[in-house]
């Protein structure tokens, strides 16, 4: 395996980690105004992700930095091409980033209610736009021979990418609901389970729409064949099993299944892309690939060594942080935020 392929895999791993972890943060944020009926309950909901959301967001920053380092042309084309969409996403992420801290710093209900909606939109917008962005990589964007994006904002919005955005919102909400059920006790847990059951059919429906559009508007099935293998199937099975475990009240397993469904979906997307990074809708020859968009071999080698040394540490101490905050929260718990 060459270094370009290795970095394609590593970036796939970073995005998988990002969607798995921030997926439930976004989901919890989107559910916050609906599942928390009073301030105390909303604080419980925020506190379930309070200690970890920032560390989870670093998965996105690392993925972005790794793209810049390993595939600078891809980073440059995508980020300048999706300029307005990314501006919207950044505005949302900035607001979300301060809202957890700021919300807790004043008792007035107007202040807190305002920040609750900031958290809601600050979670909804990135979830939607990440779904749109990842889908567009496979769908294809107008990219010319010089690797320049020649479209505008509306070229980012096509049936497939919009379905991807909505599917991301639905699946992350489901993931957030199973996470909340796992991390809380009492009424909030009951409400989260009920919400998960309601969201589940929507998520399944969105996934079906997404797969149909993948078959009709992308080259996924023509390249992979109609039996694309065990990974996409596992994503579907995991999503179906979510409902089974929700019915049994086994939210721990339900959470594992929403997580696996996200992980396998992201892997499927990356497998469908390989060895391309961004499909050109103008001419397949102009697609950005892991070879024409990459850094020098020397840089890839340096970054490989650095990643192999550092990633294990990150995994260990992030796991440790989750272990410390493993207990369920209730309205009677000591809360920080």
């Amino acid at each position, binding site marked *: 395996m060459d270094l370009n392929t290795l970095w394609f895999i590593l970036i796939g791993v970073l995005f998988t980690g990002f969607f798995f972890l921030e997926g439930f943060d976004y989901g919890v944020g989107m559910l916050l105004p609906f599942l928390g009926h009073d301030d105390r309950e909303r604080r419980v909901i925020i506190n379930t992700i*309070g*200690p*970890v959301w*920032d*560390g989870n967001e*670093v998965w996105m*920053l*690392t993925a*972005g*930095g*790794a793209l*810049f*380092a*390993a595939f*600078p042309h891809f*980073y*440059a084309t995508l*980020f*300048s*091409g999706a*300029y*307005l969409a*990314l*501006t919207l996403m*950044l*505005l949302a992420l*900035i*607001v*979300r*980033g*301060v809202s957890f*801290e*700021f919300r*807790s*710093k*004043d*008792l*007035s209900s107007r202040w807190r209610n305002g920040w609750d909606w900031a958290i809601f939109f600050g979670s909804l917008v990135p979830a939607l736009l990440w779904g749109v962005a990842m889908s567009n990589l496979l769908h294809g964007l107008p990219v010319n021979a010089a*690797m*320049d*994006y*020649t479209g505008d904002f509306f070229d980012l919005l096509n049936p497939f990418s919009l379905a991807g955005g909505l599917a991301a919102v639905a699946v992350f909400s489901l993931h957030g609901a199973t996470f909340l059920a796992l991390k809380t006790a009492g009424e909030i847990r009951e409400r989260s389970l009920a919400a998960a059951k309601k969201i589940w059919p929507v998520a399944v429906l969105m996934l079906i729409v997404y797969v149909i559009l993948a078959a009709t508007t992308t080259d996924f099935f023509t390249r992979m064949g109609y039996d694309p293998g065990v990974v996409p199937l596992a994503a579907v099975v995991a999503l179906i099993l979510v409902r089974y475990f929700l019915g049994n009240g086994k939210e721990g397993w339900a959470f594992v299944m929403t997580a696996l469904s996200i992980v396998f979906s992201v892997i499927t997307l990356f497998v469908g892309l390989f060895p391309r990074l961004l499909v050109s809708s103008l001419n397949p020859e102009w697609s950005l690939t892991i070879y024409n968009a990459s*850094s*020098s071999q*020397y*840089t890839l080698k*340096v*970054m490989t060594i*650095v990643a192999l040394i*550092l*990633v294990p540490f*990150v995994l260990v*101490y*992030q796991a440790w*942080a989750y272990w*410390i*905050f493993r207990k369920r929260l209730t309205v009677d718990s*000591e*809360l*920080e935020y």
Partner: protein
Amino acid sequence: MDALTLARLQFGIVTVYHFFFVPLTLGLSVLLAIMETKYVTSGDESYKAMVKFWGKLFLINFAMGVATGIVQEFQFGMNWSQYSRFMGDIFGAPLAIEALLAFYMESTFLGVWIFGWDKISPRLHATVMWLVAIGSNLSALWILAANSFMQQPVGYALRNGRAEMTDFFAILTNGHLWVQWPHVFASAVTTAGFFVAGISAWHLLKGSPRADIFRRSFRWGTVYGLIGTAAVILVGHAQAQYMFKIQPMKMAAAEALWQTENPAGMSLFTIGNEKERRDVFAIRIPGALSFLAYNRFSGEVKGINNLQEEYVQKYGPGEYVPPVAISYWTFRIMVGAGFLMLLLGLLSLRASMKGTFEESPRLMRWMFWALFLPYIANSTGWIFTEMARQPWIVFGLQKVADGVSNTVGAGSVAFSLITFTLLYAILIVFDVKLLTKYAKAGITEAAEPAATGEMA
């Protein structure tokens, strides 16, 4: 305005704004770690109250730094795509390492620190704060490694129209990095020191409860801030001498030195005509600039006009003179603020040691207002170092005009510029409001009212 001007304006605004919050995070994280270590080793609860009070302000500031930091990583690809293609090898790698090594560390352990007071032992809790401090300061090191390349390219080869990395260790051992990072670290220590000393002075002036803690905080802040200021001046001097060698144009602009001189005089005050590149009115100290550059009163310092000719021969026709007035004044404001801090810090330290500080309301008020001086110095310092590198984005390798995104129109940049600026304006109001509220609230006997928000 064209897309390039708008993109530059946006970069300036979001970056200077981001750097309002960064130095306090860098400096205060270390100071909090020291305070908490003192709490653990002494077992004295008043140190815990001290950590909690300053920790609250730290967290409000930290949130702003993190939120505005996301833009920093995305904007290179968004607004400077040609730069990103050209520099991916060299700029992307440190950025990725910064995330992998530093961002994970500071964010994960800060989460544990905020929520872990009762979940882990005090000793481990203090260690966690040290890890946050190390993580934050490592992130500064890596991003400055990237910036240092833009000031002084090393360890690369021009291939395939890109600056490709050939020597990772050359980038890490770049001489510029090792004057720049100490400078930034020392100014972060200064920022935190004056922040702590300033707010403590205010409480001592108002006669707030727990004067014992504020008296101690004041002394710690003053000493910490003074160490930082002294270091910043010493390192700054070394950095300036280094810049005379690697970017003489930057220093010539800082000093508004039009013609090469030997010995070179230093401008005390200049009103210049930037278009015709000459002085209208100037007071100069003979030989002082040579001394600044070489530690002796003779030696050639190159002037702007001579360097312009030299660069035309070296890089081809073009304008290689940065905006002189901006360079000259930002440099002077930065240096002036630094020496003012040194003076105020020394006065306060003397008064504090003699026990007379609290008898001098005037000095106490001065020390409160002095907390803004580091912010002025930090901002003007960055504006100077980036503006006085113009027209280069990467010195000698790529011009700013060649680095901007070629596919993003002026309308798009105007939209992002306006929305970011508006959002930032709103957020700074909230940020200052909350900082003021919690700084004023002081320390009450009740253990931790603010954390649960019962203070409004």
